[in-house]
């Protein structure tokens, strides 16, 4: 089982620890997106995944020397801005969905399903 060995956990505290945390958070969010049925909760898990990506960006920005300082942090600020825009549009879509189907169960929205 050599592919399961964890050599880097012996490494000094630093970049890889943050990356593992971000990976765990991303995969938890992915699990939620794939399995939950409440549309608003799917959106919450999407936000968790975006947060995991932001942690990766900021961690790399902090630990690796950059040509432009703080480029990773600026990029994650853009991610936050787009996430805010996405949430507001998603809220409107959920309202429409609720008016049309009287439910926010994503299983009920299957008009395009074949």
């Amino acid at each position, binding site marked *: 089982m050599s592919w399961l060995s964890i050599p880097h956990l012996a490494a000094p505290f630093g970049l890889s620890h943050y990356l593992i945390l971000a990976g765990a958070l991303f*995969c938890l969010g992915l699990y939620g997106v794939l*399995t939950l049925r409440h549309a608003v909760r799917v959106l*919450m898990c999407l*936000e968790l995944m975006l947060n995991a990506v932001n942690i990766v960006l900021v961690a790399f920005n902090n*630990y690796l020397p950059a040509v432009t300082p703080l480029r990773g*942090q600026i990029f994650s600020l853009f991610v936050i801005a787009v996430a805010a825009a996405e949430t507001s*549009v998603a809220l409107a879509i959920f309202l429409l969905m609720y008016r049309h189907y009287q439910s926010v169960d994503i299983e009920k929205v299957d008009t395009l399903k074949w």
Partner: protein
Amino acid sequence: MGNQLVFYLVAAIILVAASGVIFLKNTVHSTFMLVLAFLGVAVVYLMLNADFLAMAQVLIYAGAIVIMLLFALMLTQRRETIMLGGPDEGRSFVGGLVALLLFVIYFRIIASSPWANQNLTQSTLAAVVKDPQTQAIIGTAPIIGKEFFGTFLLPFEVASIILLMALIGAILLAKRDSKKS
């Protein structure tokens, strides 16, 4: 050493809160777990010398986005939608498998990367501002501001247009058709 202890504590809080978002039965409870996860991520940003980003995280994510999600919840509240909480049994096996496999692959990539075993302690703020005392005072906000109005001016304006489009689009979508009613 203290840094490391804080990191493990915060990482545990984030992961437990994220699990709460997924597994709690009541959707409103899971929203409050989401606040906890966002605040934990803000602490991680602080540990990574990103003070401005940590504040933005608290204001935008833990404040604005969670409020919007709560609005979405309250406006679509019904007995059956509250009971909709928790992962769907039919999909939890495949979903769990996909997420677990992705995590294992990700883990292997990090473990085999050249910088995984290096002791990287360089901070980019320290590379720009040499004096540690000035570093603590100015933080990252002035540098981010200069970058936004210099190198990243065009993306900054595009982001503002995206936000405006989202605002107008959300109003258009959610507005009731006045001719019908």
